[in-house]
């Protein structure tokens, strides 16, 4: 692959996706059957994930063109992000393949938007410069705004898109403002430069203005907190999720959230990764922990009272953002490099497990309805597990995984995040208690889905949802089920993947590779380059 891409090999996934997006625009004009585009885009996205995976061993040491090396990272963290985002996007495309046809809103641009927006998300996960962050975030967001408004004759869809667009623009502006303040404080826009300026208190051009920097950090946190829908910046989420067509909702819930999470982690652990900035009482870790606590409580309690399943899943995605932030706060809170990195691995694993579980739950919801007979409320689901056991089983598996029921992917992710939180010690242990209590609250509304699927029968004369029949949707459900079960029963290989990503980000030797004699050379070489500096990571290696 190096021969083919030369010094561009490190960003090969991005290039492939960009070309595929252009090709798809062209193909769209010629194909009759738009569902074929679903298959095509899913294949492209899946292929991109495979390409990213094939680069895994060489990550951090591959040649990289100077044109992008200042703006985009090429480490394993980025590759893990690629894989997660592509899996989520590919499954969303498969869901769309069945859904859009069934609901007669089938137009080819859906898939092009998904591909381009995923391109933005992947670039966002790689961004190592505040400018790149802004540009890629907008690439991601603009596509998503259009996806929400995709059903353009539906007022709810337009309302959701409008809300999302307006609030999203505010968030982008806040992020940009934060970036500007950071630039003012540190005279740098690249993460490593910001980190050095914050650490040494010297920008190379006069002293660092710490007050301005802290304000900038807060604004960046708010701007990105909006994108991962952390409370209290979550207001747009339920409306946009409900208004959008369900595949687009799935896409937003998994890809947009994960993309924003990736950049959040990279900014905070590379640019603001300095111990003093992160973990002192006034540091951002406490702020993130507070945000996580509010998000957990708001997400779960609000989901409890929903009557609409899609809104429930929207609030549940807020609750899961709380878990992701919780892991991040734990990572910020601890000073010891290995524990910090373990916490980051937990967050990454959680993001992947959340992606497949959420796809499964939304996929179940999609499969439960057909044109004009969509499943909206819990009552619509009554008795569905009896009428279509496969759909019922997949949907149940999805909500069980979201609930964190062993042995599913969601359980292992939740366990790991809580474990990291407890490891952080001190008052973080109480946050872990809060998190599990909120999980117990969550169990109630997830169980409600199973109650209606399997334990209730529809009322006489009540309109019932008629399950759709679509190979696309069923194959998406099957793939997601496979991941959900496999990541729960035998998580070891995914654990290694997540650890590989976060250890490289932290610039520590990967524990799994040190043990394996075959690849120890890579690890030591990398270790030497990064100098073992916490937070330096592959960014330093590239420099």
């Amino acid at each position, binding site marked *: 692959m190096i021969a083919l891409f030369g010094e561009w090999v490190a960003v090969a996934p991005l290039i492939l996706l960009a070309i595929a997006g252009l090709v798809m625009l062209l193909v769209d004009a010629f194909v009759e059957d738009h569902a074929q585009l679903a298959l095509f885009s899913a294949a492209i996205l899946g292929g991109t994930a495979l390409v990213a995976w094939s680069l895994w061993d060489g990550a951090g040491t591959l040649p990289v063109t100077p044109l992008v090396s200042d703006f985009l990272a090429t480490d394993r963290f980025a590759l893990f992000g690629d894989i997660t985002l592509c899996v989520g996007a590919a499954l969303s495309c498969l869901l769309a393949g069945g859904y859009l046809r069934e609901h007669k809103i089938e137009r080819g641009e859906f898939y092009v938007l998904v591909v381009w927006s995923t391109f933005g998300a992947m670039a966002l996960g790689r961004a190592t410069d505040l400018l790149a962050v802004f540009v890629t975030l907008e690439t991601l967001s603009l596509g998503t705004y259009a996806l929400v408004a995709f059903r353009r004759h539906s007022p709810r869809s337009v309302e959701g898109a409008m809300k999302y667009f307006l609030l999203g623009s505010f968030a982008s502006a806040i992020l940009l403002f934060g970036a500007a303040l950071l630039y003012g404080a540190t005279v740098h826009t690249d993460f490593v430069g910001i980190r050095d300026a914050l650490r040494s208190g010297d920008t190379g051009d006069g002293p660092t203005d710490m007050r301005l920097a802290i304000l900038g950090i807060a604004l960046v946190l708010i701007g990105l907190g909006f994108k991962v829908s952390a409370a209290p910046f979550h207001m747009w989420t339920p409306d946009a999720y409900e208004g959008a067509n369900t595949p687009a909702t799935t896409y937003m819930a998994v890809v947009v959230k994960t993309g924003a999470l990736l950049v959040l982690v990279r900014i905070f652990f590379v640019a603001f990764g300095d111990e003093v900035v992160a973990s002192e009482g006034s540091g951002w870790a406490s702020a993130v922990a507070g945000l996580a606590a509010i998000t957990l409580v708001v997400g779960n309690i609000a989901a409890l009272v929903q009557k609409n399943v899609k809104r429930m899943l929207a609030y549940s995605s807020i609750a899961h953002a709380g878990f992701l932030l919780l892991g991040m706060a734990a990572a910020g809170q601890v000073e010891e490099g290995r524990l910090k990195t373990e916490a980051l691995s937990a967050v990454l694993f959680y993001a992947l497990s959340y992606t497949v579980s959420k796809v499964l739950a939304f996929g179940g919801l999609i499969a439960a309805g057909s044109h004009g007979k969509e499943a909206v409320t819990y009552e619509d689901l009554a008795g569905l597990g009896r009428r279509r056991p496969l759909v019922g089983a997949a949907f149940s598996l999805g909500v069980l995984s979201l609930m964190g*029921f062993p042995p599913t992917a969601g359980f292992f992710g939740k366990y790991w995040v809580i474990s990291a939180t*407890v490891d952080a*010690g001190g008052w973080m242990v109480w946050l872990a208690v809060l998190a599990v209590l909120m999980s*117990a609250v969550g169990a109630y509304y997830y169980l409600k889905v199973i109650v209606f699927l399997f*334990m209730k029968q529809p009322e006489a004369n009540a309109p019932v949802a008629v399950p759709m029949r679509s190979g696309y949707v069923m194959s998406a459900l099957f793939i997601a089920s496979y991941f959900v079960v496999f990541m729960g029963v035998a998580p070891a290989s995914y*654990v290694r993947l997540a650890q590989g990503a976060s250890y490289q980000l932290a610039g520590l030797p990967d524990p799994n590779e040190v043990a394996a004699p075959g690849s120890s050379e890579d690890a030591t070489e990398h270790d030497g380059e990064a100098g073992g500096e916490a937070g330096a990571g592959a960014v330093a290696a590239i420099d």
Partner: protein
Amino acid sequence: MSSVQDTHGASVSPAAATSRAARIEILLAIGVAGIFLLWPSWAPPAPTNLLTLLLAVPALGALGVLFIPRQWTAVIRRFSLAVMVLELWISAWLFDGDFGTSAYQFAQDSAWIPSLGIRYAVGVDGISYWLVLLTTVITPIGLYVSFNSISTKVKEYAFSFLLLEVGMVGAFVALDLFLFYVFWELMLLPMYLIIGIWGGKDRIYAAVKFFIYTMTGGLLMLVAILYLVSQYHALSGEYSFALADMLRVQLTQVEQIWLFVAFAFAFAIKVPMFPVHTWLPDAHVQAPTGGSVILAAILLKFGCYGFLRFAMPLFPYASHLLGPTLAVFAVIGIIYGATNSWVQRDLKKLVAYSSVAHLGFVMLGIFSITGSGIEGAILQMVNHGVSTGALFILVGIIYERLHTRDLADYGGLATPMPIYATLFVIATMSSIGLPGLNGFVGEFMILSGSLASEELSVWQTMFALFATSGVILAAVYLLHAVLRMFWGPLDKKANERLPDINHREAIALAPLVFLMFWIGLFPNTLLASMRPSVADFISRYDAGWRESYAHDAQRLRPADAPSDAGTADDDVGATARAAQPEGPLGADHVLALAGGSK
């Protein structure tokens, strides 16, 4: 084999077919029991991966059920039952284990998720041995009796039962805290479905309540487990969830108390102990007969087992401090359960509340920390499984005939259903604790243990006194129920021509009645194999809470080989407690215990 009559019933005349089918089924049942008893002498020596086999058989069975078309209910029934019978036979291999030591038998240990120190570690010792056997005996019976009443969604039902068996066996044999937690939660879902799908009128409320209660407790326990693991990591530098490693962590007093509270909360919900028992009557009343049997006979035991296996050995100081308080709740539970039982009109609720009382006894025995008390508690867990399991089956039988559980609707049933009445009275007597039946041995040992208990400090007499009043109350409420059901005038028209129990019900009840007599007459067959493990438990517990916490900092105890500690010859006190007279239990026994404890 359960549904022989389903297939033959149509062609031949019904009565003849039924009697022939009945003969076949009875012969099959005798065959199953015979092979079970002869298995250890027939079969080759137990494989070393016996416990994995015990987990794999129902798991593969559950998977297999999924591939049988749902219309083939007869096939599904026979298949699932055959899997459980196979599991039962395999579990007979457990008899091969050497329970003369406290070491774990059939132990297996291999990595599961190596980078996080999560292992697949299983083993049985004297504490879990009989509970595993109880599980493999009761589960097929629970499934078998269900076939009378469960006619819809048989496939899902069989699947749930097999999955439940995996969870139950797994949780009893897990020696890794993570593994234990996984199995602990895994049992929850099938039972939730069993109550929620096949239950009574308010089944969904009951099922959700059951699920949320247990899950909340379990999640708090998870945090406690993780805290423990995190401390172990801080002390030793490596991750591990293994029970043996966790036992080495010596925490500060405050930490122990918090963690013990978290564990105790999870287990107390499951037991259930007095203030957190409210899910139990709902779940029991709404569950189908098979579900009630499993719930009462096995699931509740996990609470008690969890205290013995995890909460108390891990946090000896805290459990020494809080144990007497929990014993008070246990005694409150005994009396509260009994009085509540007394006033119930609903027969099933009556039996459900009697579980609260009986498990109060078990908890009292455990917190007495005497050899007699703990052995009695383990025995009583088995007893309760047998006799309450039988009672729930009997309640199910009468409910299927009359579709009412109100005591006022019964009366004079001894006339139309003499065999049923006899069996009911035997089960009742076993539950009350009539000498010669199993309940007596367990309760007597618990009471004598608590009388001799040093752990309960100066109040042990009060504990024993109040608990004894619970025995009397048990006689009151159960005999009260027997009186209203079977004696008195047969004044309801509907009750006059009730059929007596049929062969299926007889097959389900026969092993339980046999066990009631067997345990009642030869309790030592069970007690002998518990003794070394219990003695080891006590000596470790005593050593644990007596350790100096003066400087109150965490440290790691040196690792020891668990098999060496089993004999505990150096600990005179423990040996004296453990060495119990082999003969009939009597006053000497109590005195020996009182003298033996320090």
